[in-house]
C-alpha cells in the first residue's frame, strides 16, 4: 500500500469541558515540532461543558491551512455526535473510537476501524480523572498509528503543562498506554503517516489575539477598557497577562491601566476619555460590542478623538453563532455610527500583522485624530498559527499634532481646535490640564474654533474636512499584499484570515487552466494600489466570508465607473473557516456566469 504522507485531515469529536483542548493542542504542537506544516481549527460551542466540540487538524506539505474538504481520520469520543460523524465519512476513511462508549459501536465495512477501550485505559491511571485522561489516550493511539515522534510529543506535553510536573508525568504515561494498546492489539491497515520535515526558518505557534495583545503593548497602550465577549476576550486577557512582564516597574506599579467596564458602551466611553486626555486607549470586542459602541464611534469621529477598537469578528447578525467565524463587520466598521462617517480599518491576515497593527493602530489614531479599528476574526484570533517572530517597531511612537509646549502654542497666529492649519485636514490639539487653549469638546456642530455652531457653512466645511482627512490616510495605511501573475487574467481581491485559504483556492482555480493573481486588502479606506490592481486585471473577484459581499460593496461604490463592471462578488459564509473547495467552486461558477 502506498503511504499518504503529511496530506490528510484528522477530525476529533469530543465534548467541551472534558480537557480535550489540551490533548488536541499537544497533538498539534508535536506535529508542528516535527516540521510538518499543520493547522488546527477548534470548532467549539458557546458553552462551558458538555456540548459537542470538533478539532480539525490538517497536515499539508503544500502548506494549506484551510480545513480540508473531507475527513480522513475520525476520532470518536463523543456519543452525542457519534452517528452523525460516522455517517459523514467517505469510504476508506479511518475511525479511531472509544469502544467503552455505551450503546455506540462502529458498523461500517467500507471504513478502517480501530476500536480502543479509551475509558478503561484511562481508569487504569486514575479512575477519578478518567474522562480527562481519555483524551490523551487517543493522542497516544494516533502517535503510534501515524508514527509521531515521541520526543516531540513529550516536548509538547511539557509546553502544554508548563512547570506542572505531575500533569506532565500523567500525560506521558497516558500517551504510553495509548501507544502500547495500539502496538499490542491493532494492526495498521491505513495509508496515513507522518514524516518529519526540515524547516528553513524556525517557527512557533501563536494565536492572533495574543499577537495583537503583544502588539498593543509595543504600541504603548495606556488604557485597556473592555467587556468580556467571545472571541475577543483572549486579546484583552493577553494584554493583562503581559503587564507584569512588560509594563511594570520595580515597585510593582504599572504604566497602563486596565478597567473591566460594565458594558461595551462604557468600554468605548473610557477609550474616548483616554484619547481626549492625551493617552492611548483601546478596547477589544466583537460585532455585538461594536453595535453597542456605535454612538461613541460617531463622537470620536466628529470630535476627533484618537481611539482604538479591535473587533474580533464572529457570526452575526444578533448573537448569531458566537463561536464561529465570519467577516461580516466590514461595512459596520468602515461606516460606523449614524450620519456620514468613514473610518480607518486595519485588517491583519497573519499573526505577524496582528502584532504589527496592534501597535500601528495607535499611531494612526493619534496621527489622524480619529477612531481606528483592528478587524481580526475568530479563526485568526483564537486558532494557533505559525509565526517566525515579531518585528520591533521601526519608528518611534507617532503622537500626532499635539501642542505640549507653551512656546509652540504661542507661535500659532490663531489657534483653533479644528482649524486646518496645514491643509491636510488634521488640526492641532491641546490637552486637558495643559492650560493651553481650553475648549469644551462636543458631539454637536462646531466651528474651527471648537465653538458650538449650527451655521450651514461651518457644518459643511467641517464635514468636507473630515472626509479629506480620512481620504488622505489611504496611502499611508498598509498597502495591499499583491501576488500577481503576468497574464493579469483573474484577480482575486480578499482580506483578513482568508489569507490562510487563498493559496489552496488559487491552486484549485489554476488547475482548471486559468492564471490567478491575488490582492489582499489590508486596510480601509482602500489603498490606491487596489484600484490599480483592478485596472490591470481582466476580471476581478472580491472574495469574502459573509453573505452580502461587504467589501465588494465598498469597491463598487469607490471604484471609477469604468472599473465597476469587471468586479464580481463571491461571498459565502456558513460559520466554518473557509474551506477552499467551496470558494473555488463558487468563483468558477461566477466566472462562468460572467462569460455568458
Amino acid at each position: 500500500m502506498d503511504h499518504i504522507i503529511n496530506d490528510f485531515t484528522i477530525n476529533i469529536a469530543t465534548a467541551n469541558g472534558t480537557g480535550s483542548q489540551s490533548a488536541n493542542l499537544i497533538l498539534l504542537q508535536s506535529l508542528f515540532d516535527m516540521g510538518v506544516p499543520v493547522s488546527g481549527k477548534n470548532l467549539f460551542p458557546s458553552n462551558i461543558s458538555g456540548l459537542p466540540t470538533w478539532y480539525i487538524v490538517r497536515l499539508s506539505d503544500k502548506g494549506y491551512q484551510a480545513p480540508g474538504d473531507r475527513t480522513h481520520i475520525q476520532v470518536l469520543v463523543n456519543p452525542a455526535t457519534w452517528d452523525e460523524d460516522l455517517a459523514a465519512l467517505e469510504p476508506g476513511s479511518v475511525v479511531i473510537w472509544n469502544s467503552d462508549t455505551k450503546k455506540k459501536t462502529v458498523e461500517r465495512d467500507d471504513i478502517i476501524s480501530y476500536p480502543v477501550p479509551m475509558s478503561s485505559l484511562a481508569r487504569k491511571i486514575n479512575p477519578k480523572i478518567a474522562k480527562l485522561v481519555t483524551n490523551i489516550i487517543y493522542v497516544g493511539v494516533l502517535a503510534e498509528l501515524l508514527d509521531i515522534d515521541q520526543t516531540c510529543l513529550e516536548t509538547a506535553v511539557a509546553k502544554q503543562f508548563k512547570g506542572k510536573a505531575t500533569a506532565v508525568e500523567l500525560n506521558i504515561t497516558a500517551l504510553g498506554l495509548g501507544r502500547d494498546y495500539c502496538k499490542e492489539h491493532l494492526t495498521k491497515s491505513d495509508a496515513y503517516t507522518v514524516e518529519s520535515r526540515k524547516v528553513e526558518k524556525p517557527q512557533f505557534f501563536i494565536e492572533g489575539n495574543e499577537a495583537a495583545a503583544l502588539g498593543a503593548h509595543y504600541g504603548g497602550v495606556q488604557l485597556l477598557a473592555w467587556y468580556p465577549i467571545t472571541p475577543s476576550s483572549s486579546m484583552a486577557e493577553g494584554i493583562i497577562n503581559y503587564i507584569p512582564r512588560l509594563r511594570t516597574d520595580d515597585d510593582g506599579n504599572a504604566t497602563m491601566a486596565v478597567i473591566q467596564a460594565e458594558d461595551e458602551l462604557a468600554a468605548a466611553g473610557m477609550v474616548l476619555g483616554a484619547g481626549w486626555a492625551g493617552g492611548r486607549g483601546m478596547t477589544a470586542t466583537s460585532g455585538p460590542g461594536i453595535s453597542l459602541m456605535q454612538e461613541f464611534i460617531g463622537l470620536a469621529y466628529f470630535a476627533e478623538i484618537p481611539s482604538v477598537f479591535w473587533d474580533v469578528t464572529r457570526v452575526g447578525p444578533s448573537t448569531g453563532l458566537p463561536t464561529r467565524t465570519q467577516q461580516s463587520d466590514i461595512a459596520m466598521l468602515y461606516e460606523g455610527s449614524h450620519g456620514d462617517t468613514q473610518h480607518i480599518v486595519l485588517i491583519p491576515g497573519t499573526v505577524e500583522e496582528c502584532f504589527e497593527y496592534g501597535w500601528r493602530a495607535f499611531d494612526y489614531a493619534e496621527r489622524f485624530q480619529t477612531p481606528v479599528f483592528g478587524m481580526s476574526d475568530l479563526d485568526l484570533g483564537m486558532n494557533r498559527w505559525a509565526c517566525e517572530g515579531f518585528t520591533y517597531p521601526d519608528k518611534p511612537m507617532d503622537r500626532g499634532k499635539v501642542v505640549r509646549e507653551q512656546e509652540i502654542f504661542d507661535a500659532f497666529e490663531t489657534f483653533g481646535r479644528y482649524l486646518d492649519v496645514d491643509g491636510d485636514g488634521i488640526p492641532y490639539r491641546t490637552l486637558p490640564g495643559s492650560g493651553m487653549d481650553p475648549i469644551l469638546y462636543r458631539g454637536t456642530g462646531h466651528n474651527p474654533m471648537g465653538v458650538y455652531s449650527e451655521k450651514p457653512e461651518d457644518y459643511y466645511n467641517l464635514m468636507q474636512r473630515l472626509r479629506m482627512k480620512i481620504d488622505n490616510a489611504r496611502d499611508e495605511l498598509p498597502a495591499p499584499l499583491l501576488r500577481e501573475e503576468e497574464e493579469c487574467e483573474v484577480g482575486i481581491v480578499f482580506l483578513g484570515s482568508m489569507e490562510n485559504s487563498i493559496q489552496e483556492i488559487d491552486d484549485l482555480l489554476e488547475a482548471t487552466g486559468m492564471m490567478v493573481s491575488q490582492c489582499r486588502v489590508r486596510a480601509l479606506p482602500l489603498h490606491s494600489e487596489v484600484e490599480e490592481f483592478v485596472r490591470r486585471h481582466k476580471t476581478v473577484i472580491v472574495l469574502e466570508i459573509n453573505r452580502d459581499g461587504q467589501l465588494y460593496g465598498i469597491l463598487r461604490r469607490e471604484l471609477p465607473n469604468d472599473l465597476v463592471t469587471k468586479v464580481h462578488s463571491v461571498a459565502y459564509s456558513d460559520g466554518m473557516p473557509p474551506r477552499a473547495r467551496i470558494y473555488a467552486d463558487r468563483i468558477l461558477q461566477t466566472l462562468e456566469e460572467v462569460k455568458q
Partner: protein
Amino acid sequence: MSEKPARAIKLNVLNEPKDSYTGGPSSLCPGCGHDQISNVIITAAWENGIEPHRIAKMSGIGCSSKTPAYYLGQSHGFNTVHGRMPSVTTGAYAINKDLLYLGVSGDGDSASIGIGQLIHAIRRNMDMVYIVENNGVYGLTKGQYSATADVGSKKKKGATNETQPIDLCALAINLGCTFVARSFSGSKKQLTSLLKAAMSHKGFALIDVISPCVTFNNNDESMRSYGYVKENEITLHMADYIPHFNPVEEIEVPDGHYRDITLHDGSTIRLETISSEHDPGDAMAALTALHEAENGKKHVTGLLYFDPSKPSLAEDLGLVEEPLLDVADEVLRPDKASLDALNAEFLS
C-alpha cells in the same frame, strides 16, 4: 505673578480674581436653577483655590449638560453623549489622575439612560464630583417626566405622574458612595459649602441638587417647583467637612435652626438645619432621614453620608505615581531586548 490691579479686586490664594473662573453667557431659560448652580461652581472653585486649568468639566446631554460652557472658561471640558459622562471621565482619569473631574449631569442623564454608568462609577469610587441638576423633567425635549419625578407630580398640561421615582441619594448610599449630599439650586451658601467639600473629597462625591425647571415644572402641584420646595424642604446640617488644604473662607455652619433664603425670583426658601447629631458616617441614619422625608413629602438636604476611608479608583489601578500622561514614550513602549527575549522564548 500677576500685577496688583489699581482697584482692589478680591483674589483667592492663587492671586486669581473670580473672573478667571467664569464662562460664557448662558443660553438656558431666564431664571433657570441650573444657572445658579453654575455660579456656585465658579465660587467654589475660586474659593477652594484650584487652578482653573487643572479642572476638567464633564457632562452628558441635556439642559444641565450644556452648562459647562457657562463656567470655568479656562478649563478643558467634554460635553459627551447622553448618560455616558461617567465612562468618559473614567477613561480620562486613568490617563491623568491629577485633574479635578467635575461632572454635571441631569436626572435624565443620571437616573435613566446613564444610571448604569453612574452606578459603576460609584462602585469604582471614581475620584470625581458628580452634580445632578435634578428637575424631574426632560427640558430640551419639552417637558416629559423623568425617572426622578415624584408620584403625583402634575405638569402644566398633561397627565399626573404615577410612576414611583428613583431617589439618587438613597441609591448612592446603598451602593457605598463615599460622599452623598442633596441640596437646592437656590441654597447658594449650603450648595457652595457642599461643593467645596466635595471638591476636596478623594473618591466619588454625588450632589443631587433640586433645580426646578422654570418652564416645564413650575406649577405648584409639581414637587420640584419653587413653590413646593419652598414649603417642604428640610435640611440636614450644612457640610462642615474641611478641605484638605486651608480653605479660603471658613464655612460657617448655623447648627440647629432655620434660615430663610431669598431666591433670585423673589421667593424665599426655608433651609432647615437638622441638629448636628446627624452623623454623616451613619448610612442607616441617612437612609432613615431620606425615608422620613419621602413619607412626609419633603426633601431633606445637606451632607447625608460621608466615608473617607475607602480607596479610590487610583489606588485600585496600581499605577505609577506620575499620571500616565506624563510617562515618556520610551517607557510606555517596552524596549527591543524585551521583544527579542519573547521571540526567543516562543521559539524554544
